[in-house]
């Protein structure tokens, strides 16, 4: 059982479950979906590892970065756990082609930044095929990748530019923030008939949290409250939800009651949940690790300005990364990343506390 404050289902809900690491919840869900539907398969570089060496006794060596898919080939075989050459544009495009013709590919793009190599397939094929062809087809494609900074991987392996994907009509984007949400969102993404990008922040992958035993999905396009409060709304997504939760807990000790909205989906975007929260608290701080210009933080701010202007008692605040790539050196990288201190300082300033 979990403590009320950590219960992902919200205060007051008690269900049977277990403590599980994010990566394990992710993999358990992949297994369940592979079992559930024969048309689901996983494709990407080193998703099993050591491919083609079964005769030498090698059947599973890497299992993807952070061992996301480790062990799957033993149970599902090389037909469904498919190791590729380093050809992102090719295999993502092929996955889209297979989705157009009846399969349900789950594509491991490894690090989020590598989307760049395959981007044309996302922009020109995945996002537009259904529309251009007058709704004749669907694209039940799931993509996943490891996003974000904080691990010393430097500029080309630390990006978080999910707003670029959320910008594209035809693509859905989800940003789980704990083991509970990755299980529900990944299952929903794989069962969904549209292309969905699942962003797994590297700092979340080894975190442990409560996961109910029962099978569930989280509806795409629905956010949730992870803290209930009255003085200010903190909006988080992916890792920054963890940042907001921790900030809210510390603010509480100082007598400030912060509500935390965890977006979970960036497209579709649950406008209602943060508009309702702002209607109650009248103040909002949006926390996004990405650079600020044309970001998700900007988008949420725009929706609030447009639809909840009258309930605002203070300017909308964004806490974001700077308009720079992610630096390598540890101190600089930490400075880049929005953290609890930043959120607390911004909130207090906003409240005049």
């Amino acid at each position, binding site marked *: 059982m979990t403590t009320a404050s950590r219960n992902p289902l919200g205060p007051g809900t008690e269900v049977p479950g277990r403590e599980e690491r994010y990566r394990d919840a992710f993999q358990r869900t992949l297994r369940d979906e592979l079992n559930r539907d024969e048309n689901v398969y996983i494709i990407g*570089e*080193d998703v099993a*590892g*050591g*491919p*083609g*060496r079964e005769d*030498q006794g*090698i059947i599973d*060596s*890497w299992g993807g970065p952070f061992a996301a898919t480790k062990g799957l080939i033993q149970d599902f075989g090389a037909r469904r756990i498919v*190791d*590729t*050459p*380093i*050809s*992102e*544009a*090719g295999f993502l495009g092929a996955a889209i082609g297979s989705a157009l013709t009846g399969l349900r590919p789950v594509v491991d793009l490894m690090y989020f*930044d*590598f989307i*760049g*190599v395959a981007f044309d397939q996302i922009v020109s094929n995945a996002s537009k095929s259904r529309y251009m062809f007058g709704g004749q087809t669907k694209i039940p494609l799931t993509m996943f990748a490891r996003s974000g900074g904080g691990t*010393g*991987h*430097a*500029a*080309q*392996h630390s990006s978080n530019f999910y707003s670029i994907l959320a910008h594209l009509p035809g693509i859905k984007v989800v940003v789980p923030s704990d083991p509970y949400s990755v299980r529900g969102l990944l299952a929903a993404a794989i069962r969904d008939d549209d292309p969905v990008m699942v962003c797994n922040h590297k700092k979340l992958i080894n975190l442990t949290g409560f996961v109910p035993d029962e099978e569930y999905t989280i509806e795409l396009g629905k956010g949730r409250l992870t803290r209930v409060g009255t003085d200010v709304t903190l909006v988080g997504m992916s890792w920054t939800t963890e940042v907001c939760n921790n900030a809210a807990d510390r603010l509480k000790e100082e007598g400030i009651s912060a509500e935390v909205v965890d977006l979970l989906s960036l497209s579709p975007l649950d406008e209602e949940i943060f508009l309702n929260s702002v209607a109650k608290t009248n103040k909002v701080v949006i926390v996004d690790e990405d*650079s*600020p*210009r044309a970001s998700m*933080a900007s988008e949420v701010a725009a929706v609030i300005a447009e639809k909840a202007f009258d309930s605002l008692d203070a300017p909308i*605040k*964004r*806490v*974001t*990364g*700077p*308009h*720079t*790539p992610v*630096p*390598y*050196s*540890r*101190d*600089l990288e930490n*400075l*880049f990343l*929005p953290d609890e201190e*930043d959120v607390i*300082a*911004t909130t207090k300033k906003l409240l005049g506390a």
Partner: protein
Amino acid sequence: MAVPKEKLSWMYETMYRIRRFEERLLEETAKGNAMGVAHTSDGEEAGPTGICAHLTDTDWISSTHRGHGHCIAKGLDTKGMMAEIFGRATGLCKGKGGSMHIADFSKGMLGANAIVGAGIPLAVGAAFTAKYKQTGGVAVAFFGDGATNQGVFHESVNLASVFKLPVIFACENNHYAQSTSVEYAVPVKDIADRATSYAIPGVVVDGMDALAVYEAAGEAIARARAGEGPTLLEMKTYRYHGHFHADIPHTYRHQEEEDIWRAKDPIPHFEKTVGEQGLMEDAEFKAIRDAIETEIEEAVQFAIDSPMPDPSELYTDVYVNYSNPLQGLR
């Protein structure tokens, strides 16, 4: 091809410098001194050494995530490199790039690149500049076997062939891309065979033999300088360690295979060949090794003693000129 004496000692020195740099870096990474992810190239020293022996500071190279050997062979300062990997202000990129992004434009080094294949067109571009400005310079793209499965590799080679650019496509076939063997991922027998589609020479060379690489690269670079266009040069080689510092290679390759390659180690192999021909004495080899030991120790100490970057460095170097810096909204 007769190799001038000073080239021979430079080659030995360069290979040993790469070797010791990588070995010490792994130790420092294990201690937690070096930050980030280290992809080492020990075992593969002969390739960059044999190629860069023909280059000057006005020739260009592009590199990969496994780039320390390329950097050293192109003459980059080991202090500045080590400090970069330690995330220090004195690093060649001020600590902002790290192991996978070391660059020194003053030395003709266009930067290591962590996106597989992404450095290849940059060398094509440098060759374009050389032709455009008639500098007589050449460019070398270093990349792995795995990178030749990227579309950008094929586009780049085709472009260079069509434009007849002075570029060498230097493929370090170390037989693995992460855990994926080249036999699984590349259907042609030799990666050099891929040159056929682009009507350029494709040459296979023993990548554990610096003198063999020197000779093959010499021909390719001479062709390039003479305006005869690009060459694809495949060096068969092996990385002694895992894909990166924490990878355990025995999960996908066998010890016996590693032993076979280690038996061809480029450094003793060089000592033997050059020694037997009476071109260098044991004492000369030893003097070089001793000097390198000292140099690498000094590089490590320099990195440890160097300051971290000033916080203001987070915001610099994004643009040359930008009116609205947006230093994070906090």
